[in-house]
């Protein structure tokens, strides 16, 4: 083009002749960029510091016994946190058993059926639960399951507390994914004479599959790191315990107890436990990434 009218209100100005404010603009740009990079670096630095410290302190504590043996009494060196790892997995299993069906069903209700006041109430309640401090959930489950129903601290109560933490995260994630499933797909299925419920279960939900996986993994990762509600429900246990109506060990509780102890061996094991917990959650998060990548590639 002949007319190089790139700068507004400065017609046909020669491009090699800089605008008067050019120097300051360039300086401002450099300043802002530097500030942003420093902020980003600070955030990453904190993360790396924590990670690095946990790895340096935690890695030496890991050995076969750490993963296979039960904790030993104070003073005796050795043993491991196997009951805690098992307990965490057990309680996450219980939490998934209750939390996944309820969370997914709530999401289906909100996205596919819910309208009007009831749906608004459900949606509001979900937000409310998501905002509850986890210790409050712990107190509630303690008053209900520990004190009134079972009569003692138990793993089932821990699982239920974790389920309550999982449900809002799961519901929101799945609801969002169900909402982005295009309506023409629902219509295509309905027009084939497939009933609504089957359309949702066999067409809409599989299409949103990756989102459901993401929600499950995300909420499980969040619940797996919770300590406060477990202190009030599962309590912790130094022995192998497979009865869910008995006090059950969990990694976060083990870390909490060991980290507060005066024994160097226990303190080392607390770092080891932290490392295992971070790895567990990290692996879950990587699974999420993988699911998201699959979703974006798939559609």
């Amino acid at each position, binding site marked *: 083009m002949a007319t190089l009218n790139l700068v507004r209100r400065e017609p046909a100005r020669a491009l090699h002749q800089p605008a008067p404010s050019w120097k300051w603009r360039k300086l401002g740009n450099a300043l802002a960029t530097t500030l942003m990079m420093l902020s980003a670096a600070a955030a990453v630095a904190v993360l790396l510091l924590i990670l690095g410290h946990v790895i340096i302190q935690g890695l030496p504590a890991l050995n076969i016994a750490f993963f296979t043996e039960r904790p030993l009494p104070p003073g005796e060196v050795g043993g491991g946190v196997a009951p805690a790892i098992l307990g965490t997995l057990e309680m996450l299993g219980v939490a998934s058993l209750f939390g996944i069906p309820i969370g997914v069903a709530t999401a289906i209700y909100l996205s596919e059926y819910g*309208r009007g006041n009831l749906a608004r109430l459900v949606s509001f309640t979900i937000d409310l639960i998501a905002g509850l401090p986890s210790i409050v959930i712990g107190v509630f489950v303690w008053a209900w399951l520990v004190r009134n129903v079972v009569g003692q601290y138990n793993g089932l109560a821990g699982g239920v507390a974790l389920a309550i933490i999982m449900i809002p995260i799961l519901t929101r994630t799945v609801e969002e994914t169900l909402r982005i499933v*295009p309506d*023409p*797909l*629902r*219509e*295509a*299925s*309905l*027009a*084939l*004479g*497939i*009933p609504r419920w*089957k359309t949702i279960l*066999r*067409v809409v939900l*599989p*299409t949103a*599959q990756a989102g459901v996986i993401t929600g499950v993994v995300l909420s499980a990762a969040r619940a797996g790191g919770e300590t406060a509600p477990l202190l009030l429900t599962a309590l912790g246990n130094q022995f192998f315990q497979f009865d869910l109506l008995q006090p059950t060990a969990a990694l976060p509780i083990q870390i909490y107890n060991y980290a507060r102890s005066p024994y160097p061996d226990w303190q080392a094991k607390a770092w080891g436990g932290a490392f295992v917990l971070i790895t567990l959650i990290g692996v879950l998060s990587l699974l999420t990434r993988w699911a998201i990548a699959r979703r974006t590639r*798939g*559609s």
Partner: protein
Amino acid sequence: MVPSSKLAPPISEADVTVPTPVPPEPVPLEVNQDGPSMRARELSAWYNVTRKAIEHVSLEVPAHRITAIIGPSGCGKSTFIRCLNRMHEVIRGARAEGHVELNGEDIYSAQVDPVRVRRVVGMVFQKPNPFPMMTIFENVVAGLRLEGGYSRASLEEVAERVVARVALFDEVKDVWKRGASSSLSGGQQQRLCIARTLAVEPAVVLMDEPCSALDPIATYRIEELMVQLKQDYTIAIVTHNMQQASRVSDYTAFMLAEEDRIGRLVECGPTSKIFTNPSERRTEDYITGRFG
């Protein structure tokens, strides 16, 4: 409208003996008694309490013919065709009033299950909408597979038959058991959707602007297919492409929404008559491109 309660048991007789109210646009068309035909009587449809989309549309869809519904955007032609298999009410808040008869039986009567209606009256949509998580084969037999109770062998037999019917078999035969439907072109996807509709063995096939997302060659192939399909199916097609209507259809109905934005049937009749010698001035204006 029909006081069937007074003339209780044989409903078919009631339809014969009771004179129906005269529709605003009389539609005396040749009706083939040997196949599935549809008849809308005094059909009105709403999107919500206040938004009325069509009013008092009465139209015959004769058996083994292609009936085209044309009209400018917003004239309610898609709304109308979606009422013919009760897909309109799927939209939240939407509702329809009036009668639509399929072989004399009112599909809007309270005893009729809309899911059954959609089995008999299939629908192809504007944009190809194969199920993304299913293979080509699974897409084709989705209706039967989700209904359940069919053996793998019978599903394969049906799939092969309908895929061949839409002239897709040669193009997909090597990959269709594992290939994703997204690997197909737009035209192939639309033929896949037609095959999927045919697989549940409907009597009537409704097509809502089936070619508007396709290129001319793919459009041509779909049109060719429609003409072949009318031997076995009764077809109604919504199109805003007048050339398409004149090329493929036997009957044409012209709908129009005036200032009140409520669609009404202006005129319908044999396609040759509508396109050469319409009785309504508004039809002529639309056909000759004076508006729309």
